[in-house]
């Protein structure tokens, strides 16, 4: 069981919304309407931790260790939304989302293979870590710059925790886990294969298709792409940081050296060939 140790580490690193945010340093001259609009959208996006936590708990009924970790993850992700809402409440209440806008991103996700969801969220946390670092650099207002760095660090810790659970899954269920993790790794490091690259862009409920992505439930569904490409300018250099982190971690996990999405794809192909050979022989 790794939940107690993760709990201890995350509790030791936890920041206080009241005491650790330097609210008194707010400078209204350094924030624009576009900045505030993006804070509003990210506050709604972070609220989507709710259906994700519901999905994880539903799909991991047999795994009490991981389910217990969900209690921390859900708490901290909701806190991300809350700190952004608190920023708006203090300095730009006209940008606060309504309760209905928050409720819109809570909808039921279809059941998904737990190992794939685990890897997907590991990659998602790595990506969020870099998005928020990039957002912190883009903002000029000191309080929101600090908030985004705190969120980025939380996301990195979450990625580390998800990675621990991936290691555990690998020890328990080697082949199945390798196939699931490499599948998601290829998808999440290859923009040509998959433009989604983050869980909030994925279709998650076939009965609601095509209105079944978290981003599609935002008041402004095209906002995220615009924010990334034209505002914070999450460019190739940032993208490489995500890819390197995912590939390096998977290399460590699989005990291989894998420097590109293509190499990971090749590794997975070999895994599948061996898997089919063993299945055929049995």
């Amino acid at each position: 069981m790794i939940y107690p140790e993760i709990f201890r580490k995350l509790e030791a690193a936890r920041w206080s919304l009241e005491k650790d945010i330097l609210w008194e340093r707010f400078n209204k001259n350094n924030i624009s309407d576009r900045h505030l609009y993006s804070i509003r959208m990210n506050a709604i996006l972070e609220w989507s931790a709710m259906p994700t936590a519901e999905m994880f708990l539903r799909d991991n009924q047999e795994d009490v260790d991981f389910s217990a970790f969900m209690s921390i993850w859900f708490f901290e992700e909701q806190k991300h939304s809350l700190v952004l809402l608190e920023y708006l409440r203090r300095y730009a209440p006209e940008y606060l989302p309504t309760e209905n806008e928050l409720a819109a991103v809570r909808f039921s996700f279809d059941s998904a293979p737990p190992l794939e969801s685990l890897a997907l969220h590991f990659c998602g946390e790595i990506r969020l870590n870099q998005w928020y670092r990039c957002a912190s650099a883009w903002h000029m207002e000191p309080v929101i710059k600090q908030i985004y760095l705190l969120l980025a660090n939380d996301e990195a810790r979450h990625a580390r925790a998800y990675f621990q659970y991936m290691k555990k899954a690998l020890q328990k269920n080697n082949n199945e886990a390798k196939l699931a993790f490499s599948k998601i790794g290829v998808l999440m490091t290859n923009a040509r294969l998959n433009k989604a690259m983050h869980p909030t862009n994925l279709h998650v409920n076939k009965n609601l298709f095509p209105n079944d992505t978290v981003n599609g439930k935002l008041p402004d569904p095209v906002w995220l792409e615009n924010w990334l490409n034209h505002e914070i300018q999450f460019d190739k250099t940032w993208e490489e940081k995500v890819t390197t982190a995912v590939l390096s971690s998977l290399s460590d996990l699989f005990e291989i050296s894998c420097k590109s999405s293509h190499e990971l794809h090749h590794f997975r192909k070999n895994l599948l060939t061996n898997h089919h050979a063993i299945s055929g022989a049995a």
Partner: protein
Amino acid sequence: MVVDDSPSQLANFYCFCSEMKYENILEKQKNNPLTFMQFINEYTNCNHGCGSCIDNLYAYLAESNLLID
């Protein structure tokens, strides 16, 4: 089940904040040894990052006989 994060397993661990594998961070310490506090400040981004790696790096340096307290 216990996940093995013993120092000898950590060479290929990737620090998300320093954007480097532990073995590459260790290489810097080999080339120019610093006290642990200086090591964290100079060779990693752990102080401004998430902090998850600090305990691991301490153990990894100790096992590699490169820890200067």
